[in-house]
């Protein structure tokens, strides 16, 4: 990667190079050797560890036998975001973490093999699935992220008509806009979107539910509605100086890097990212790649409590990010022209663990420090979409829609919810792979509901 720790300027060419996929694809020989190393376990633990239950030994065996189309079908059948997941899943916590070879040698590179097989399908423009025979049942989906797309794909295969309403200009949700392009290039979710569209699913982009069409219109016009709208923007910090020019929302910031326009050049800039989750890491690594001179992640707790995946943390360290632990932002300082000039942080100390087992932190009286920065990126989580949820009149708890864990049905008949919008309060998991699985399960539940009704009314 080209960084400009010493020089003060980074060219657009360098930025472009910095944002191309970082992890190299397996070469054919590596892929086949690795596929042959797979033991092809029976009742394999990797399958259980995959939230979408991909038959991993089967798809790997198919790579070994040269049945590449079969391999891609096995993956994508179980996981409509299988190509994205090959790149963004925390595999060491999922499939690869469960590989029995962890005990005997090194685990099979399942993610990389999954990418190898799906890359093949993308490159060879394969059509993997067919739509089912028309049932004339029509389902609306709010949001075209991995959750909504997965549900749409399954419903279309059953023969149901599906319309997705998507607020953004492009479909794909955070796969398209939120996960940095050097981990997930936009072409990958774009292919997954196309796979879904090819089954006849209509995606109405630039259409906001609650503004361009109301929740009530959807529930009236469709046989079922799935809310898959994810989460909102980064919440406010509630400190002085937040309105300054150089204060940014991490998700918006990443989205800008995925537009491919590169209007932002951070040459010579000093950046503070507030937070220590995956989004914070992504915002920080993006900053480095945009040429920032220095990037710090500022977190009120310690390394131990940070929520970013281990591989993300490792990635951040490799990109030369600095970490400011036990530092709570107190004030963003600016000059008269509204530019950020510094971030005032309060030093914290650890105290005895609270009831949740998590060590408490407390401000050390009078211990402050001003970090010399020109840009502050907030990455302290995402807001909940309460107005939308309330418009659908479904039960929720602080913006987390309550659902039935097998059918994903909400409190309101005919309305289902999946993905990040149901994540939180001990429910769900904010991952692409779990969003995909929930989409499948909601689709299956709706299908059986609709066909049962059809049988009854027949």
């Amino acid at each position, binding site marked *: 990667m080209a960084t400009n720790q010493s020089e003060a300027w980074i060219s657009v060419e360098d930025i472009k190079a910095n944002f191309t996929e970082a992890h190299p694809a397996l*070469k*054919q*020989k590596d892929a086949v050797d690795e596929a*042959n190393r797979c033991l*092809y376990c*029976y009742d394999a633990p990797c399958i259980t560890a995959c939230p979408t239950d991909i038959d991993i030994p*089967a798809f790997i*065996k*198919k790579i*070994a*036998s*040269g*049945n590449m*189309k*079969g391999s891609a*079908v096995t993956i994508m059948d179980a996981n409509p975001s299988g190509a994205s997941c090959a790149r963004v899943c925390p595999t060491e916590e999922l499939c690869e973490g469960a590989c029995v070879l962890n005990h005997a040698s090194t685990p099979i590179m399942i993610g990389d093999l999954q990418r190898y097989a799906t890359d093949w399908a993308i490159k060879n423009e394969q059509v993997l699935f067919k739509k089912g025979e028309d049932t004339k049942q029509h389902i609306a989906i709010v949001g075209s992220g991995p959750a909504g797309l997965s549900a749409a794909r399954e419903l279309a295969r059953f023969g149901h008509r599906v319309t997705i309403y998507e607020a953004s200009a492009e479909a794909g949700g955070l796969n398209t806009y939120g996960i940095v392009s050097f981990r997930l290039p936009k072409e990958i979710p774009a292919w997954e979107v196309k796979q879904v569209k090819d089954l006849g699913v209509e995606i109405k982009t630039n259409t906001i539910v609650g503004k361009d069409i109301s929740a009530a219109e959807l529930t009236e016009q469709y046989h079922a509605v799935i809310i898959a709208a994810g989460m909102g923007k980064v919440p406010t910090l509630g400190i002085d100086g937040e309105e300054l020019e150089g204060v940014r929302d991490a998700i918006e910031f990443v989205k800008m890097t995925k537009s491919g326009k590169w209007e932002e050049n951070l040459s010579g800039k000093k950046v503070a990212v507030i937070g220590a989750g995956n989004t914070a890491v992504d915002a920080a690594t993006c900053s480095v790649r945009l040429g920032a001179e220095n990037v710090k992640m500022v977190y009120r707790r310690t390394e131990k409590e940070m929520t970013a995946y281990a591989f993300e943390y490792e990635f951040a360290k490799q990109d030369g990010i600095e970490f400011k632990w036990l530092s709570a932002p107190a004030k963003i300082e600016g000059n008269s022209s509204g530019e950020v000039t510094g971030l005032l942080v309060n030093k914290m100390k650890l105290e005895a663990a609270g009831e949740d087992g998590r060590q408490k932190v407390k401000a050390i009286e009078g211990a402050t420090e001003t970090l010399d920065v020109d840009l502050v990126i907030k990455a302290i989580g995402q807001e909940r979409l309460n107005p939308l949820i309330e418009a659908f009149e479904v039960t929720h708890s602080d913006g987390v829609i309550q659902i039935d864990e097998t059918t994903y049905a909400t409190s309101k008949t005919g309305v289902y919810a999946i993905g990040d919008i149901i994540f939180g309060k001990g429910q769900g998991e904010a991952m692409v792979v779990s969003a995909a699985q929930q989409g499948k399960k909601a689709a299956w539940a709706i299908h059986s509901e609709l066909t049962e009704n059809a049988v009854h009314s027949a």
Partner: protein
Amino acid sequence: MANLETSLAGIRSPNPFWLASAPPTNSGYQVQRAFEAGWGGAVWKTLGDPILNVSSRFAATSFNGQAVAGFNNIELITDRPLEVNLREIEETKIKYPNHAIIASLMVEPNQEKWHEIVKMVEAVGVDGLELNFGCPHGMAERGMGAASGQVPELVKQQTAWVKEVAQTPVIVKLTPNITDITFTAKAAVEGGADAVSMINTINSLAGVDLDSWNTVPNVAGKGAHGGYCGPAVKPIALNMVAECARRPDINVPISGMGGVSSWKEAAEFMLMGASNVQVCTAAMHHGFRIVEDMIDGLNNYLDEKQIGSVAELVGKTVPKYSDWGELDLNYRVVAQIDTETCINCNKCHIACEDTSHQCIDMLKDEQGNDFLQVREDDCVGCNLCSIVCPVDGAIEMVEAPRKTGEEPMTWNERQSLVSMMGVK
């Protein structure tokens, strides 16, 4: 979706994948599980007079980390009572009417014995018979299996005895433990066989334990030769199938086996003249579920080649298989090294230098970087360098222009020219 249905001498099955007569087809429970998994047919573990088996039966050769490259066994035919097998065959056939069940049979070379067992198995509804003239160990010491399968007259005679009473198609399973398999295949045809299958296992000893000096496997300190199968035997089996397929007087369908581990080998066997394939070792290594990729992979292959039915593959490569004397002596391929892809391990150089024709030079370019280059004029096109090369695409064997004035000419053509000219 291509049509995978096959017919071997009138025995129909939903796909060309049959389980070979061996432990996977030992019982009704297993065969039913296999059909559930997708296998198109099963040749029941060989039936005959009751035998006794020994404990410690199998051994495998692993080669450079590849487990079960070859598989060796000293197991005999079924050790379960005939009545039990017959009952389970009947029950399985009723449950799976569209799958093929073949009874593998082996009895002493005696007309009455053959008549008796054929009638018994046909009475429970098998779709065909496979005469096991191939088991190389144990049974052979008693004059059965390979012992009779190595004598063409015995093959012909016993096949004829079976044909006297058989109502269903008769497949004769041949032993590879013979110099030229076409002799026994021909004998089977003369005896009236409706099809031949090959190969049974090849005489083998898997290994010797270097601490105990026992054979592998050993039974109470003693060993005996076994039968070899699995991926390692595929080239031997494929040639035997091909040799039979190209003989006009062996004009019966062939069921091919020996090292079929995936759809790829199946396609190879079928191109080489087999109407279907049988599998034992691969199923023993991974379970019945491997058939899923065999079916799926074959299907995708046929779709990609725009072939509507698997039957269209059968024998397509046979006309391309001939005798050495029919090969063009003036055809040339030479090795070409792609220096971009080459990783400079120099394995091709040393292979050629020490064991072939000394035509790969180790050179340096102007910047002092190493590179390898073939002297094409000296290259005989043996392929050794491309075989030892560890990198895909670094060495390619390419067709070289014929030497000036040289037209295609085979050895046979050359010899007839020479004799016409009366020169020695």
